[in-house]
């Protein structure tokens, strides 16, 4: 999966930064599982008509989205949030290379 765009959504009062990652293809269950490697906590609501998921590593990021969409919303925390973003992008794009 390729990240084709990153849009800044909001700077939060809690110090977090919300961004939207745009992918070149639709999010699949396999892709969610792949991204969840990076998360300490994964929630996947598979009984919804369009499953909602949320990945979280406290203090670093939350990533949420809906299976079938091409975007996810990422909230980054901490002073090294740009590095966290780069790691998430790299993780997402590694999947494409396989």
């Amino acid at each position: 999966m390729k990240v084709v765009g990153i849009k800044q959504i909001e700077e939060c009062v809690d110090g977090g930064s919300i961004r939207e990652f745009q992918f070149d293809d639709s999010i699949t269950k396999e892709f969610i599982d792949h991204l969840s490697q990076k998360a300490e906590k994964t929630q996947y609501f598979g009984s919804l008509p369009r499953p909602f998921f949320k990945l979280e590593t406290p203090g670093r990021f939350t990533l949420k989205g809906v299976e079938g969409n091409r975007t996810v919303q990422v909230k980054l925390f901490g002073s090294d949030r740009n590095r966290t973003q780069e790691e998430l992008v790299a993780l997402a794009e590694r999947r494409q290379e396989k």
Partner: protein
Amino acid sequence: MERDGLIELSIVGCDKNGAVSADDIRAMFRQNTKLVVINHASNVTGEIQDVETMAEIAHAHGALILVDAAQSAGCIPIDVENWQLDLLAFAGHKSLYGIQGIGGLYIRPGIDLAPLKVGGTGTRSAWLYQPDELPTKYEAGTPNVPGIVSLKAGIEFINATGMSQINAATNRHMERFLEGLVGLEGVTLYGRETAENRLPVLSFNMKGLSPSDVGYMLEQSFGIVVRSGLHCAPLIHQELGTYPEGRYASARPASQRMTRSVSSWMQCDRLGRTHEGCRNKAN
């Protein structure tokens, strides 16, 4: 004013629907109580208060009443004279269909308030002081003409459509909202479980999801936009137990005449089972 030590506040609570009890109001009066301030309808649960009775109580204790009709103006016919309301504040951008930044304050004749702002004396340009005549006394500066025009258009829309017609549509939406949510496992609804005595807003939470997650999911999956969070109303969220213990308050859908079909909402009938599909590596 409270923080400056100019006034003291007595905060009256509400029940689980957001209803304020007349007895609780009566019990809260002190010798120095001058003003009762109450929401006509809750912007969190939609509960409509009996402000006519509240006005009687306030006046019986020698106090004035200020009704905040931000949520109700345009939804409910309001009769400031028969209800004997002293002050009534309303927002133009909710059910009056105006744009943001416009609203109004009704002041019963005979009540003399100090203007909040002065300057730009307008009708008396040569004066150095704010004119005493109404409404100029309270309308300092340049009027918000775009807001006023939008409010006028909104009111004309309501009058042309008919408030009862609008309410019939929004009540149908509410009934469907409630039909889709009441009794679902994993969904907590705040406020009445019927469309009776409420405006077309409701609040709910889903087990395992923060309100902002619910909002995101509804928008992304169903095209339903809701307001998530405290709704600028932390006190009622404290009463409902959704803040600070609940931490995230609630998700709040609302309906108005322009709201499109809520059929997609009915797909949410599966929301209540969502936690079954939840897997959590941390647990």
